[in-house]
């Protein structure tokens, strides 16, 4: 495939591999191939979870039975949660775009432990398949919610153990990815790239990786203890044997709260990449953004008990956890201010990636503010376990990380696949997804505040209007998602070849061909300036306009 006219090596899709066909992919240790593997497998799980979410919304269209039985609804929200969290949004940005872009962005040929990287993907797929298989085993799919709270998770006859083992394996995969990234960032930066010349996405991945490494083992041991409890009845969390179910909740959230920062931090990193490129400006307050990632990782690890204000805790404990929760908002707000300041007086190009990021900023702010409301002790007791919490969570995770992921997809698509996508459908999909998302989740906040409890199969008639609006929103959202993915899939076949640097980005991944050659860099570049030096650029290069 090598073009004799160009001195460039063949791209990584066309390079000759040891094994042919599918084996050349699933046994490849090339970080770019592993990134694509993650992308494909994650999108499969994501689509299934979206369909489950869509069915849940359909069920809630009217009070009482609409399409499924209550037990089925219970397994729906459990699986939607497990799949979206453990199979989509936690691996999400780091496993796909981190794997693909991290070595490119720091001027390295691969991650530090390429084989371990492949093992992470294998574990990810194993965990994902196990979670799916647990659906069809006798006993029925797990119905505990993704939180697996005891004592119900000890008592229920459904397949909790396969679901928990799946989560355990996925956690192990996440740990290995984190470990790999930390080592890569420490040891493999190109000569001259000191810590403050790293792109901000790399900073975000670095903070995320530390949370992955330090928090995930706790969920591992906690789930393992519940499995041991179910199999042997040792009595660690079972109250009839003297165990303490609240202790389970503490251990669960010691991981699962930091986990939401595993989910959001890479998204914040993506925003910091995309904004300077499409505003043609150096990022405002680089160091503040970099340090705020670390601060979020640090504070975010100390606020877990704010999920448990109603289960019984000392007033001092509640006060401290509430205060720490408020502190997390400071570094988050610093980022928002810096992004907006970067846009200010920039030469803004309203391309699809930036549009997704603008939605991100607004939706993430709404998610953040409702998060602060939840951190207020008095309000928390009023809205605990209502749709308000669910709405807040989706505003941060879907409105935030999900949109960042869509933005990243549209931003890095040309680099990853070497094709340009059609811009008009991308913008239309952005519009539909944004409208659909807000129509879907804004009513959650309203009816939650009015008292609609989460996870309930049935509801009082006065909530129906909100449920109907919300369900209609889910249809708009699905339509937008379909257009988005069809557009990108069509671009894979028919898109025009992408130049090396279609957006005029200044980070290193744009200096290599699209798609990149196997070894990434012919010669490892030497770094002399920071990552967002826009003094040279006026407009996006004409050839792609």
């Amino acid at each position, binding site marked *: 495939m090598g073009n004799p006219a160009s001195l460039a090596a063949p791209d990584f899709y066309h390079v000759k591999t040891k094994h042919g066909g599918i084996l050349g992919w699933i046994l490849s240790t090339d970080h770019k191939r592993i990134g694509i593997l993650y992308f494909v497998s994650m999108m499969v799980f994501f689509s299934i979870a979206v369909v489950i979410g869509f069915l849940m919304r359909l069920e809630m269209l009217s009070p009482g039975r609409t399409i499924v039985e209550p037990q089925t609804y219970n397994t729906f929200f459990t699986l939607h949660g497990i799949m979206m969290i453990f199979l989509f949004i936690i691996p999400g940005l780091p496993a796909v775009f981190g794997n693909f872009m991290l070595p490119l962005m720091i001027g390295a040929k*691969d991650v*530090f*432990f390429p084989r*371990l990287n492949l093992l992470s993907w294998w574990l990810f797929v194993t965990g994902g398949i196990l979670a799916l298989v647990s659906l069809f085993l006798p006993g029925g799919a797990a119905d505990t919610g993704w939180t697996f709270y005891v004592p119900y998770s000890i008592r229920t006859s459904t397949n909790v153990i396969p679901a928990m083992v799946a989560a355990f394996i996925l956690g192990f995969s996440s*740990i290995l990815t*984190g*470990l*790999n990234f*930390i*080592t890569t960032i*420490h*040891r*493999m930066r190109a*000569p001259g790239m000191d810590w403050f010349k790293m792109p901000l996405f790399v900073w975000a991945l670095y903070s995320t990786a530390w949370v992955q*490494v*330090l928090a*995930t*083992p*706790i969920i*591992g*041991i*906690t789930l*393992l*203890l519940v499995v*041991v409890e179910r199999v*042997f*009845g*040792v*009595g*660690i969390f079972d109250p009839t*044997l*003297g*165990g*303490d179910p609240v*202790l389970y909740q503490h*251990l669960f959230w*010691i991981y699962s709260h930091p986990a939401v920062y595993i989910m959001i931090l890479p998204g914040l990193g993506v925003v910091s990449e995309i904004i300077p490129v499409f505003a043609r400006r150096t990022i405002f307050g680089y160091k503040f953004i970099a340090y705020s990632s670390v601060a979020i990782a640090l504070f975010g690890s100390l606020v877990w008990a704010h999920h448990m204000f109603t289960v019984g805790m000392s007033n001092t404990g509640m006060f401290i956890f509430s205060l720490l929760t408020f502190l997390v908002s400071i570094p988050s707000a610093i980022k928002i201010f810096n992004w907006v300041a970067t846009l200010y007086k920039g030469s803004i190009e309203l391309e699809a990636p930036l549009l997704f990021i603008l939605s991100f900023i607004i939706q993430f702010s709404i998610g953040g503010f409702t998060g602060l409301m939840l951190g207020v002790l008095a309000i928390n007791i009023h809205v605990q376990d209502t749709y308000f919490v669910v709405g807040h969570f989706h505003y941060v995770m879907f409105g935030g990380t999900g949109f960042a992921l869509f933005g990243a997809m549209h931003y890095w698509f040309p680099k990853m696949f070497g094709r340009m996508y059609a811009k008009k459908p991308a913008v239309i999909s952005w519009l539909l997804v944004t409208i659909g998302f807000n129509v879907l989740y804004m009513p959650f906040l309203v009816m939650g505040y009015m008292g609609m409890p989460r996870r309930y199969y049935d509801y009082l008639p006065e909530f129906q209007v909100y449920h109907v609006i919300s369900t209609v929103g889910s249809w708009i959202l699905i339509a937008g998602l379909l257009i988005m993915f069809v557009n990108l899939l069509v671009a894979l076949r028919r898109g025009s070849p992408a130049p090396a640097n279609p957006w005029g980005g200044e980070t290193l991944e744009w200096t290599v061909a699209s798609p990149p050659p*196997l*070894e990434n860099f*012919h*010669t*490892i570049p030497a770094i002399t300036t920071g990552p967002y030096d826009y003094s040279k650029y006026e407009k996006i290069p004409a050839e792609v306009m």
Partner: protein
Amino acid sequence: MSTQASAAVAEEHAHRDDVGSKIGIWLFLFTELILFGGMFIVYAVYRFAHPAEFHLAAIELDTFVGTVNTIILLTSSLTVALSIRAIQDGRTSLSLLLVGLTQVLAAAFLVNKYFEWSHKFSLGIYPRSPEMLNRPSGEILYFGLYFTMTGLHALHVIIGMAILGFMMVSIARGTINRTSHVRLEAGGLYWHLVDIIWIFLFPLFYLLH
């Protein structure tokens, strides 16, 4: 660092960076420590809630067997450390012998553990036994934690033995040698982790009274 070597053939060697490898293994050891840390939190909470019952239950453990096992594990850490020193000096067969000795000590630890546990079972002390269910909840929790934590530790001993087994193969084949021994150091570090977890388990379960 030989970053200039860009030929794909030399990839394996171009990537060699022992410091980076050690960062990786240390990070992995952190995760293991935190994994056990979760259990130590559970232990701390329940011991704080039931101090007297933990004390009573601990009398039933055999301090002698626990002490013997502690000595065995500490000695095995010494032998694995010496094996690294030996390979650095180029004394391959001595290194192989020392890792082998570590394996023997690890097996001895597990044999002791096996007899200790079966003795407990014969006394009716195991989860959900009629004997256990008659006891106060603090004792149920103590023995539940005892079996879970020492059981998970024993699992790590077995994993450690498997790792050391691979190391022995590599030493015999010469892929771990005088100039390239970071993998043996990593295996040794893992073995020390197994050891240090026991160092905490031993007083917390055996030396309470």
